[in-house]
Structure formats: structure tokens, C-alpha cells
């Protein structure tokens, strides 16, 4: 089946099987391997991407469902070659170790901060409760997201 998907701002037209999972479209057909697969029962969130701006598990969406829609992956997060404040925050605050859950975690956090620019720690933990991490114990992920929230709010103030 022919589908058109815009991924990280670029339009693509592809011919795919209906059963092709969105995560495989992204990783295999489009060679964007930053989105990862960590489980097979939709529990881990490593595959999180933004579908029309909302964080979803791309392993639990068929690529054909993304026909005519927009997808953002970790490769599309940096801004004009500059790290997004979330990427900066994860770096500054050691919010990653093996890096495998990190793309999914950042996509979820990005959507969180767009919706709730000043989340409490509990709100952050709740928002990332669909993203499993085995390495960090989450403390520094929370700090990374808080760093980004502050940075984004400061930027808002300057731009305002």
C-alpha cells in the first residue's frame, strides 16, 4: 500500500505492507535508527516518537496508520544543528548511560514540556512512566528534564 509520511519535516512516499510496524518503517525503510526496540509487548517505550506531536509507542502503530501524518524522531529534535535544551539537559545532568532508552525518553519529555512547561518532579515521573530505563534509576533523567524546563522558560522570557 502506498503511504505518505512526513518524518522530521521531510515528506516520504513509500509502498509498504499493512502489517509493517511504524518503528520498522522508521528504522529500516527510512534508516533512522535512533528510535529503538526494547520489547514486544508495548511496555518499554524505547520506540517512542511524536505522531502529530503526541508521544506514542511506534511499535504499537502500523506504518499505514501514519499515512498523511507527521512523525518526529530523535534525529529531528536538534534545532538548526544546535542541541535542543533537552539534549543539553541530558548531557549536563548525566541523564543517560547506555543511551538505549534515551531517544524515547527525550521524545516523551519534549511533548511533556510543550504541554506543561513547568512540571513538578512528580509530574515528570508520571509523564515518563511509560518509558523504562534500566541504567539510570531515573533520578538524573528527572534532573535533565528539569534543566531543560528551566532553559526553555528562560528562552521564552527572552523571546517574549
Amino acid at each position, binding site marked *: 500500500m502506498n503511504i505518505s509520511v512526513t518524518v522530521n519535516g521531510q515528506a516520504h512516499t513509500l509502498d509498504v505492507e*499493512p502489517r509493517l510496524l511504524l518503528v520498522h518503517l522508521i528504522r529500516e525503510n527510512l534508516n533512522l535508527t535512533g528510535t529503538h526496540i526494547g520489547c514486544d509487548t*508495548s511496555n518499554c517505550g524505547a520506540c517512542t516518537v511524536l505522531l502529530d506531536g503526541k508521544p*506514542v509507542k511506534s511499535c*504499537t502503530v502500523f506504518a*499505514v*496508520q501514519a499515512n498523511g501524518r507527521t512523525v518526529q524522531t530523535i534525529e529531528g529534535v536538534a534545532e538548526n544543528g544546535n542541541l535542543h535544551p533537552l539534549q543539553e539537559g541530558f548531557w549536563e545532568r548525566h541523564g543517560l548511560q547506555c543511551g538505549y532508552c534515551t531517544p524515547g525518553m527525550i521524545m516523551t519529555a519534549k511533548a511533556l514540556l510543550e504541554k506543561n512547561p513547568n512540571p513538578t518532579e512528580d509530574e515528570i515521573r508520571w509523564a515518563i*512512566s511509560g*518509558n523504562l530505563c534500566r541504567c539510570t534509576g531515573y533520578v538524573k533523567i528527572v534532573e535533565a528534564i528539569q534543566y531543560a524546563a528551566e532553559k526553555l522558560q528562560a528562552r521564552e522570557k527572552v523571546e517574549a
Partner: protein
Amino acid sequence: MIPGKFDYYAPTTLNEAVSLLGQQKGAKILAGGQSLIPAMRLRLAGPEVLIDINRVAGLDYIREENGYLAIGAMTREATLDDSAVVHSKYPLLADTAHVVADPLVRNLATVGGNLAHADPANDHPATMLAFGAQLIAVGPKGERTIPIDEFFTGLFENSLGKDEILREIRIPAPQRGSGGAYLKLERKVGDYAIGAVAVFLTLDGDTCKSARIGLTNVASTPMRARQAEAALVGKRLDDATIKAAGTAAGAECDPSSDLRGAADYKRDVIRVLTMRAIRKAMERAQGGSR
């Protein structure tokens, strides 16, 4: 991990969807897909045809109408979780949407799908039972209303016809003095409930005028705790009455033993959560905390 093959349709109108459902052999509706796709990936489900209704316009809404809250069947859990009217006027529903699966699933999962899947482990069935909701189904012969008490007919079985699609859920507008609460005990975020209880009461002062109690994951279908309800109706809700209702709920459910715990544990969880949910519903009914 990899689902089997299927044919795929993405109709843009409900009528088209209904007629495809009638024509295509072995067809299933794809709504949020958050229950169906995992089952297909493990090859526990293998529909030959998927009818994707995500492109049917006009199924995703929350509207206060005459005497009820009308919720489109394709309304996402996240939308319910964010809705001001749901939080302020239907906190039982807000409680429920908040704890379905995890935040990512909630961006795609739909309240209609959560009900139509007819899984006693899902959360909305108990809550809709507690609300006494009505479901609007659309089929080739037109629309019909299904009272929630008639909807769940067996494990993963509902009373929709083979060619009917759920279109809307209607929750009666709250009367004065009513309040509800949903309490869920889960081992971790994203797990199914060890047990959960939805309580909806109307009070006259301290006396219970009506009570509906729905239970999650403690029987082969979503169930009402009718004996627990009976223990409350017409009575002053003091400690002894609440305790009696809890005991009744625990006794009348029929949980299975599994990794979440033995059946007697789950019964006791229902007993305890029923008491706690009644108290919370009372607080809300009396205009107290949210």
C-alpha cells in the same frame, strides 16, 4: 514480535466502516490499537482484515448535552485525562482515564476501544457500570442504545452485533449530592489491576439514595457488586455500613489466582478498595476534596 498479514481498510465515514465490517470476513475494528496490536504481534490475534476507523471524522468529542455527557467512542484516554469538564463534573471518569495503562498508551487508546474489548481487566467497564452509562451502537440497520448493564456478555464478548460499531458513550449528568471515585491497586504503572473499584453514589445528607459499584479484573466479565450496592442503599453511610458493603463486594466477586496474588487476596483487596472508594465518593458527593 511480528504480526501476521492482513488486508487493511481506512474508511472515512462510519457508514463505510459499518458496511466493510459486514462484508469482510474475519474483520476487526482498529481503534487505538493499544490492545489489538500487541495481541497481533504475539500472534494471539490474527484478523484477516483490519478496518481502521481512525480516519472517520466526528467520533472524538466530549460534549455536555441534554442530561448527559456525550463522549465519542474514539476519544483518546489522554483527552479525557486533560478535559476540564471531566475533571470538574465527572471525577470518577477522570480517576479512571488517569490510570489506564501508561501515558504513551493513553495518547492512542480510546474509551470506546477500552469498553468494546470487553476485557474485565480494563478500567472503563467498571466505571461505566458505576455511572450506569448508555452506549450508542451503529449498524447497517441504524443506531441503537445499549444500556451498559447489557453490554458485557462474556470474556472478551460484548453485545454488539457482528457488524455494529460503538459510536458514543453517554454518562448521565450528575445530580446534586452525587459523587464517585475509582481506586485501582496495581503492582506498577502499566500493569493491569490486582483489583479496582468504581463507586458512584448519590446521597441525601448522610443517607445513600443510590449506589452503583463496578469491579475490575475480579471476574470473567466486568461486574457490578450488587450486594455491596444493596448494603448501602437507603442507609446512613457510617463505618459499619461501609464495612458491610466492602465485605459484600469481596464476597461476591470471583477473582482468579495469578501472579498478582491468590483469589482470597484479591477478594480482600476489593473489600478494602470498596470501603476506601465509598469514602472518597462520599467526600466528593458532599462537595469535599477532589
